[in-house]
Every structure is written in C-alpha cells, then in structure tokens.
C-alpha cells in the first residue's frame, strides 16, 4: 500500500509538471473562445508547402547528426573504454566537456574562431578561413557543432554499456578468433540496443535544437514554434506548429519502445568484481592516440581556446563578475535544488519502471523520454499556459516554475540512471529486508538506496549539470529578477562586448567543472567508505 501510494504520487507529480502543461498548450490550440475547432491545424496544413523545407532541414540535420554521432561516439567509446590507449581517462573527460554547456555556445566559439578577426586569422590562410567561415553558416557548420555537442552522449553510453558485456563471452570468442572479430560478433551485438538507443536520443535532441541552428542561420522547424509564439503571440498556433515535431518524436519513441526498450533494460553492467577485457592496440597505440587527440583538439580544445582567448581583456572578467555574480549564485542554488528533486523523483520513477510496480510503467518511461526530447521552449510555453492563473499566481511568480521546468525536462535522465543502477542491485536484498518486517519506505531508505548509492550520486551530478546549463524552458519561466546564468548570457549577447560574453561562458564552464570535481571527489569518498 505504502509503495503503491508513493509511486502513484510520483506519477501524479509527473503528470502535473510534464503532461498537463503540454495538454494545456495543445488545448488552447483546439479550444478557441470556448469552442472546439481545428482551425489552426487547418491553417497550418493549408500552408503545408512552405513548411516542407524547414521540416526537411530538421530531419536532414537530425539524421546526419545521429548518424555521425553514433559512428564517432561508438568508435571513441571502444577506443577509450575497451583498449589500452594511453591517457584514455583524460581524453574521455575532455571529450565530454561539450555536454556542460548549451550547443549555441559552441556555435559562438566557432564563430569567434573563424571570423575574419578571429583567433585563427594568423594561423590559417585567408581564403581557407573564408571557405571555412562559409561552411560554418549552414548545414555543414550546424552539423559540426551538433556532432561536437552530442557526441559525448553516445560515447558515454558506449562506455557504460561495455560493462554489460560478459567477459567470459569475449574470452570464448577469443578462443576462436582475434579481437576485431570478437568485437564485431560478440561485443558490439551485445551492446547494440544501447547504441541504437543513444542514436535515437541524439536524433530527437538534434530535431528539437533551436539555439545553434538559429545562430548559424540554418532554417529548422522548431523555429516555427518560436516564431508563432513570438511574432504572432499565439499559443494555439505555436502548439499546432509543434505538432509535426511532436508526431515525429512520438513515432521514433514508439519504434524505440517496440524494438529496443526491453533489450536496453536487459543491458546491465556486470558485477564490479568482474574485470572488463581490454584490447591491446600494439603498434596502433600511438596512431590511435594521435587521432583521438586531434579529434579532441578540433572538437573541444580549439573552441574552448577561442572562448578563453576572446575573453582575455583587462576588464572582461571583473565586468562579467559584476554583471552576473548574482545570476551565477542563483543558477547554482536552482541547479542544486533541481538536482536533488530530480534525484528523488527520478529514483522513484526508475524504481517503478524497474519493478513494473504499476501497470502504467511503460507510459511513465515514454512520458519522461518524450519530455526530455521536446524543445525546452515548448515546455516553457506549456508551463505558462497551465500555471499563469490568479489561483496559482503565488507559484507562477516564484522560482518554483524553474524547478518545474527542470523536473519536466530532465526526469528521464535520473530515471534511466536509477534503472541502470537498480539492475545491478539484486532484488533479494530488498526481499530480505521485506522478510524482516520492514515497511517499504524503510527498505528503500536503509537497504535499496545505500546499495544504489553510486548511481544515486551519479544521477544527482548529471541532474546538476543539466539544470545548470538549461536555457530553453527556464528562460521563459524565470520570475522577474531571478534569471539564471545561461539566460543572463543569452540576454547579454545583444550588444554585450564579445570579451564579456566569452568571459561569462568561461565562468559557466569553469564553475561546472569545479563543481563536478568537488562532487566527484565526494563520490569517490562515499564509494571507498562503503
């Protein structure tokens, strides 16, 4: 009873923060002046032809991004997780850095690099620079930026799922064939569902991305929702404009659920005691190290360098601190609160899915994934549509709206991390506690949570990163005077000196890295204490 009630409460909260805002927004698209009408949809599809190019662009960009990210991410995941490549930990951390900030900042970095007075002007010939600069604005540049931004997703998933491969199976393979064949016929097929899930996730994230394509002047369909909301002040039309995107998202998630989800659930890391087999690279060690280092330089070091170099002016950092210290402090508080609530909330969602504790466990998983992949602006618009009423004014005017936005958008992360962690915690641990007479909440608090602690802490850290870097939804719902640092950076981009903007971005990245380093040490301390 206790379990059922708690999990139902979690589902209700998920519906309130995630589903109801979307429903409110779509409700406004079909109920106009108290009457049911499909007028906005008729209007949208009557002008269908003009929408095909941006829809085509969105699908092209998303497909190419997912394809490139999957190939690159899996290759890097294998090199960094499965071989004896030197410095692989350092390179893995380096290549993951783009996850720490929104993709539009990467776009800004590349603009700083390739502008005619940019960082590379003294290094690259002018004609080459002009050519590269031309490529930046359009599909190639957009693709490069999104690949850099989302590659860590597939790379990290590959690293994670490699631990699910039973080393005995690989050893059996090695008795018959060498490593390339073993990787091809044993390792990769085992983790294929996880890789495909990563690719699908990236496809959906790229499909909903707005900031970078807008900056790089590549017309994509999510801008249509933004346009409807801004130029026409029309909730209903904005919701209608989002419907093709939503339809594609639902279709892809349905495919994922039908063909992949069960297989992904079954991918569980092997017990910590089992050592993963590493592939010796032999004479390929140095070339592989060079190749990965070059890639890390191109994807991470160069843009970050551009950011740092363009921030180097005597007054940039003092001015940045003066302008944004309050929003930085707020961002850290909001992110900490958001991460904590996400961890609690996501834990129970993950528990519900793992144990299939309620009949609607599949719906919960799908809903959290859907919300994760929707553009943040859509979630923000939905939250305003639902909560902006006199009765809920106290909540609407508070930072609670920002927290709601985080919960709606990122529960899938903590839920899936919990799911993966619980897969490694034997069910008998909880059952043994149950047989002693302990009620459900006590079993969770004293047995399951401590056993799952590393995963819980990882969920908190990842929730913290994503809340800290969030822009889409929080930009629309933050209460007056309580903007977050990413929102502050975005607003200051209008006529703010480039050095100031760069300094603010460097501060955002640095604060995130420092927070992660401190919290990562805490994780190691807790782990060793256990």
């Amino acid at each position: 009873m206790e379990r059922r009630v708690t999990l139902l409460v979690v589902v209700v909260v998920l519906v309130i923060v995630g589903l109801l805002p979307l429903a409110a927004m779509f409700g406004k698209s079909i109920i106009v002046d108290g009457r049911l009408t499909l007028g906005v949809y008729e209007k949208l599809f009557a002008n269908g032809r003009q929408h095909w190019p941006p829809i085509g662009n969105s699908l092209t960009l998303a497909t190419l991004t997912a394809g490139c990210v999957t190939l690159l991410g899996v290759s890097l995941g294998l090199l960094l997780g499965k071989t004896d490549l030197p410095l692989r930990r350092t390179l893995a951390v380096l290549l993951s850095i783009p996850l720490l900030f929104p993709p539009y900042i990467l776009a800004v970095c590349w603009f700083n690099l390739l502008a005619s007075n940019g960082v590379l002007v003294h290094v690259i010939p002018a004609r080459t620079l002009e050519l590269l600069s031309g490529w930046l604005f359009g599909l190639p540049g957009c693709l490069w930026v999104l690949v850099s931004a989302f590659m860590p997703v597939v790379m990290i998933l590959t690293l994670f799922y490699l631990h699910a491969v039973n080393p005995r199976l690989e050893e059996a393979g090695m008795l018959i064939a060498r490593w390339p064949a073993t990787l091809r016929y044993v390792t990769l097929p085992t983790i294929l569902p996880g890789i495909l899930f990563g690719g699908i996730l990236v496809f959906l994230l790229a499909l909903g991305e707005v900031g970078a394509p807008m900056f790089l002047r590549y017309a994509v369909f999510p801008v249509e929702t933004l346009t409807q909301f801004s130029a026409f002040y029309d909730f209903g039309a904005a919701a209608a404009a989002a419907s093709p995107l939503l339809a594609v998202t639902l279709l892809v998630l349905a495919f994922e659920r039908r063909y992949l989800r069960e297989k992904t659930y079954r991918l569980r890391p092997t017990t910590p005691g089992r050592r993963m087999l590493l592939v010796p690279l032999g004479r390929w060690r140095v070339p592989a190290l060079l190749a990965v280092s070059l890639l890390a330089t191109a994807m991470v070091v160069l843009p970050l360098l551009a950011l740092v170099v363009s921030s180097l002016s005597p007054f940039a950092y003092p001015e940045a601190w003066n302008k944004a210290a309050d929003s930085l402090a707020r961002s850290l508080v909001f992110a900490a609160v958001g991460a904590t609530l996400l961890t609690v909330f996501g834990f129970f969602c993950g528990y519900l899915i793992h144990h299939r504790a309620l009949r609607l466990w599949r719906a919960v998983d799908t809903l959290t994934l859907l919300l994760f992949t929707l553009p943040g602006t859509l979630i923000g618009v939905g939250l305003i549509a639902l909560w902006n009423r006199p009765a809920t004014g106290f909540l609407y005017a508070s930072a609670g709206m920002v927290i709601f936005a985080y919960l709606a958008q990122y529960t899938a992360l903590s839920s899936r991390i919990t799911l993966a962690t619980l897969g490694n915690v034997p069910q008998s641990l909880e059952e043994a506690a149950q047989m002693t007479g302990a009620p459900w909440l006590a079993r969770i608090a004293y047995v399951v949570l401590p056993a799952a602690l590393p995963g819980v802490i990882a969920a908190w850290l990842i929730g913290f990163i994503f809340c800290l870097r969030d822009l889409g939804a929080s930009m629309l719902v933050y209460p007056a005077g309580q903007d977050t640092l990413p929102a502050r950076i975005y607003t200051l981009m209008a006529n703010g000196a480039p050095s100031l903007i760069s300094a603010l971005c460097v501060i955002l990245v640095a604060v995130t890295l420092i927070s992660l380093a401190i919290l990562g040490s805490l994780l190691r301390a807790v782990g060793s204490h256990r």
Partner: protein
Amino acid sequence: MSAIELRAVSKAYDGRAVVDGISVSVERGERVVLLGPSGCGKTTVLRLVAGLEVPDSGAITINGSPVAEGGRNLVEPERRHIGMVFQDLALWPHMTVSQHLEFALRYDIRTDLAHRPARIREALEMVRMADRAQAKPGELSGGQQQRVALARALVANPAVVLMDEPLSSLDLELNRYLRREILRLHAELGFTLVYVTHNREEAADIGSRVIAMRPWQDRPPHI
C-alpha cells in the same frame, strides 16, 4: 493445526505453469525438504509461502491463518513473521554483522526495545559470529556469510524458517559443517523448516521428510 498448508496452489509465468495444483502440509517443528532439479518449481513454492510471489489459484495458510487466497496475498510478506535465507544470502553490503541483526529486529513488534541488544548477542553467539560483529559482508568468508544469513533469519525467533539452497555454493566440507549447524539450531529453537535443495545427500541429512518435485511437463498423463 499445520504450520504451513498449501491447498491446490498453482503459479504460472508467461503462460507456462511452474507450479500446478500443489497441496502440501507441514507440521509444526517439522523439517521438510523440497528436492528436485532446476526448473521444477521448488523455489517458487518457497517464495509463495514467503509471500514474495502471489499464487494464481489455491490457498496458503500459516499457523491456521489464511495468508493467500483467490489469486491475492491476504497477508503481506513483512507481516508473516517468517525467517528466510536466500540462495545468494542477500547480505546488505553496507551494514555490519550486528547492524544486520539490529535491522532484522527493528520492525519485530514481538521483541521489545530493551531486550533487543541481548537478543542480538544471543543470535551472534548461536552462530558463533560474536567476534565478527563489526565486520561487513565483504570482509567475511563464505561460511561466515552463511552464518550471518542464518542469524538474521533466526534472530526474531520466527516460527517458520525458509531456506532456498543456502549451501549450494559451498565446498563439501563447509556444506556438511553448516548442515550440522542448521540441525543444531533447529533442535535448540524448534522452528518449522522448509528447505529447498537439488542435492540428495543434503536432503537426506536435513529433512525429516523429503518431497521430491519434478518439472510440470515431466508429469505422467492425467488419468
């Protein structure tokens, strides 16, 4: 009145019957062993008695009180006051030996607060683990872990104890040693024991009665 009674209990997974219409009665203080190969449903029977699985049909009573009937549990596992030793022992890696027993007593309303420390000491001495009270499971040998699992199952003085292949992963010497320990504890405490194993020697040693089980699909045709 039997300690445990199963009447026409059935359980299926994904349409495949694992337990079909089983009826068993276990008297108080008896040591009943369920013997059979893998997949014959013996662990399922144990889990049904514990309440960790719900029978599709049939009825289960414990000490005369119905605990499962009509396709649902009438009494949840945490209220059946049954001690259980799991096949993988299910020791909590973050708790010390004495914390295991403290937790096992915390929700036992029959043991009052004042007597709990004494009860824990008794249980540790009973399994000869008093000198390792502050150790965590990772610091113990296989046999020591077994004894901790036994102590946890027995510390609250349950009337019924279930053991699911508790000795299957141990070497022969340790296995025999712990069988003697189980019998000694049974003689001291007098609980009703249902013990699952696929090992005939173990079954003959431990059980005062052995029930041989075989997979449902191996049954002779119904007449």
